[in-house]
């Protein structure tokens, strides 16, 4: 007999080895998330998927599902905290949606829509970050990086290349690439690599794809991130 836990009072089945997030996605329950992609090993850094389990906050993407767990997710308090985290992600980087090719297909933007973000609330940090256009096919714009490490994981675990990594500490954290010059063009990244397709924001973009789909006809112009991700789409 399969085991069950409850999320917001609803009984959800799960199998041993699944996380709360796995169980939720399988049962069509949406818990907002950015650094999680079911194809990769859970990471637990963005903290958007935080839920309350028996009174304690835990990241649902990394917390193993346990029989009888009482999980609260879609609550006013948690959604308010998720909104604050999303605002933090916006102000620590330079996210200028109107000029970003990813606008409309961007998960950060879509989560902000979903959580009803109307302003950044905090003061923008306006950090100085480097743009790297050295690669023939891929543009790396660090202004939009949210340190989810999906590209790091994809390159390491799927492509077997270790093209990406994080360096620095705290707010000085930077996405680095595997070349002595520090340039993406000097790495062995290929346009067909999984790592080029997993960025939830516009930090990694395919070149020469500008506005092939017009604004207004993009994914999140018509669907919520909830519907898209429950539909199994994370890229």
């Amino acid at each position, binding site marked *: 007999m399969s085991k069950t836990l409850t999320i917001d009072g609803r009984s959800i089945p799960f199998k041993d080895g699944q996380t709360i997030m796995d169980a939720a996605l399988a049962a069509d329950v949406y818990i907002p998330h950015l650094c999680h992609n079911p194809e990769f090993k*859970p990471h*637990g*850094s*963005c*903290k*958007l998927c*935080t839920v309350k389990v028996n009174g304690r*906050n835990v*990241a649902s993407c*990394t917390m*193993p599902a346990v029989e009888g767990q009482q999980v609260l997710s879609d609550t006013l308090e948690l959604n308010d*905290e998720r909104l*604050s*985290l999303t605002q*933090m*992600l916006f*102000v*620590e980087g330079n996210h200028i949606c109107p000029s970003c090719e990813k606008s409309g297909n961007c998960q950060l933007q879509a989560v902000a829509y979903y959580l009803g973000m109307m302003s950044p609330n*905090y*003061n923008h*940090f306006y950090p100085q970050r480097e743009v790297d256009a050295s690669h023939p096919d891929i543009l790396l714009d660090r202004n939009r990086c*949210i*340190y989810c490490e999906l590209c790091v994981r994809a390159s390491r675990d799927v492509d077997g290349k*270790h*093209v*990406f*990594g*994080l*360096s*620095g*500490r*705290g*707010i*000085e*954290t*930077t996405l*680095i*690439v*595997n*070349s*002595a010059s520090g340039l993406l063009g000097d790495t062995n990244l290929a346009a067909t690599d999984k790592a080029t397709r997993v960025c939830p924001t516009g930090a990694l973009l395919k070149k020469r794809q500008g506005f092939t789909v017009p604004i207004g006809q993009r994914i999140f112009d018509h669907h919520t991130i909830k519907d898209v991700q429950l539909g199994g789409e994370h890229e």
Partner: protein
Amino acid sequence: MQQPESPDLSRILTPILARHGSDSTQLLQVLRDVQDACHYIPADAIDQIAAHLGVPRVTVEGVAGFYSFLSTQPVGQYRLLFSDNITDQMLGKDELLQYLCNKLWVEQGRVSEDGLVSMDNTSCTGMCDQGPAALINGWPLTNLDHNRLDLIAELIRSQKPVAEWPPMLFEVADNIRRTDTLLGEPCVPGTAIKQTLARGARETLAEMDKSNLRGRGGAGFKTASKWSFCHAAIAEEEGSVICDIGGRPERFIVCNADEGEPGTFKDRVLLNSYADLVFEGMTLGAHVVGASKGFLYLRGEYRYLLKKLEGVLKRRREAGLLGNDILGHAGFSFDIEIHLGAGAYICGEESALIESLEGKQGRPRNRPPFPVTHGYKGRPTVVDNAETFACSARIAEKGGAWFAAMGTPQSTGTKLLSVSGDVARPGIYEYPFGVTVRQILDDCGAEEPFAVQISGPSGTMVSWKEFDRKIAFEDLPTAGAFMVFKRKRDLFLTARNFAHFFAHESCGFCTPCRVGTQLQKKIMDKIYGGHGTICDMEELKRLGHILKSMSHCGLGSSAANPMLDAMEKFPDVFERKLKALAFEPAFDLDGALETARKITGRDDEWAHL
């Protein structure tokens, strides 16, 4: 920035790489040595180290970028880092730093034009009882004053190697002011191990259980439980069991001597004068859980203790207290290796410490699984504070009941406190748990005490109204820091110092801590600059809630404590600094013109708003 001519790298690198072998867990140790030799980690060295250890270049660069004492840009041949704890500031550190900067013609945070010297701040170096303190190329300088800085400036100008500087500059006193059962008696090497072997592992664990010893790092988890979980853990790797219940050799004992909590320096004294007691505790712990390998993770700031500690380990090996068949007990093999940190407070968190031991960035792991089942290299690992191991040795010597008779029922035994700040006699004080704050203040000669920061920035600030509270897990738990502030101190500066500390030490892994600690720091600076309003206090409270409830580890969840405590207990220290307005922009229009004024050399009325 123009990089200087690359030194003959392979000449420098070859012996370092040979010394550390080719295991990737040695990465941090290798990088420390390269930093020492080259004053930075050159790009070519990163490639060579990566090739030697068989890890990707990004991994090496990532680790080099994570730790404060490593840098990928050249620092001065003489690198001075001033300890920036609030206690150092109270002793005049800011003025002293500026004084030396002026003397040596260098700007804080910069390298001098000739590459000779660089000067900056660093987090508390654990010398609060003899500050202001600093590190010169990693070696501690204590009791700094203008005379000493004059001498130091002269030594740097004449380019005298640090090894030849007068020893009095580097003197570190123990300052033990009060002893009890832990520090009161000398440790005769081997006593606790003999008792353990006579009693047997199971019985020793029973004594540990009876003692009710709880972790001295502040969290207070029961040590006997941790040890028995580790003993009972079964490690699996790719489907096959590699470690049976209680079996050897795939278990590890780790001593956490990364005491980075500002205001804490008890492990410094323990390791300087009671190292045998700590190693004794680790060894008997190894016998109980069935470990064959131990690590002492020594914070980078305490590298000056390394040689001495290596000497103690050597002596213990020669006495048959480490190595194979310890004290003739067939099959009981255990040895200890020392790993140095490189300036990262987060490595005091046990899973981050393990990552760092493995040569990686010190980022806390996701839990579960916990280190007792999946620790170092994925194997069952006990991580305990240095003081916890020292207590274990005493318990093995004298029994659990003896230990449990001291302190309070929930907090047995004694506690080492590191007392600093506005007191006549700063230093180490050992008390049975249950002692009141007032008693300690009396004993250390506190001068008009007004507030005490218990257990450092991540702990609790108590006001003079609470001085009858007790040091105990059930009242005021502590890792040891006890910083005293007298009446005329501005406690806002204390909170602001701690806000800066957390922002600097956040590892950056999770959103709430990475960004939240920065937001806190910015708001505290805004209030400090005279632009604060009541809204900013509200925002601090909201941030505090998010940090507490959403953070990945204890650093983030305690990072708001200083602000929340100060606002609750001393609201006037904030309110005095606020503007009477409900809203005040964080953006200072006139301040933004400063660059333009500098460029044009103007400071007249029309150059201001």
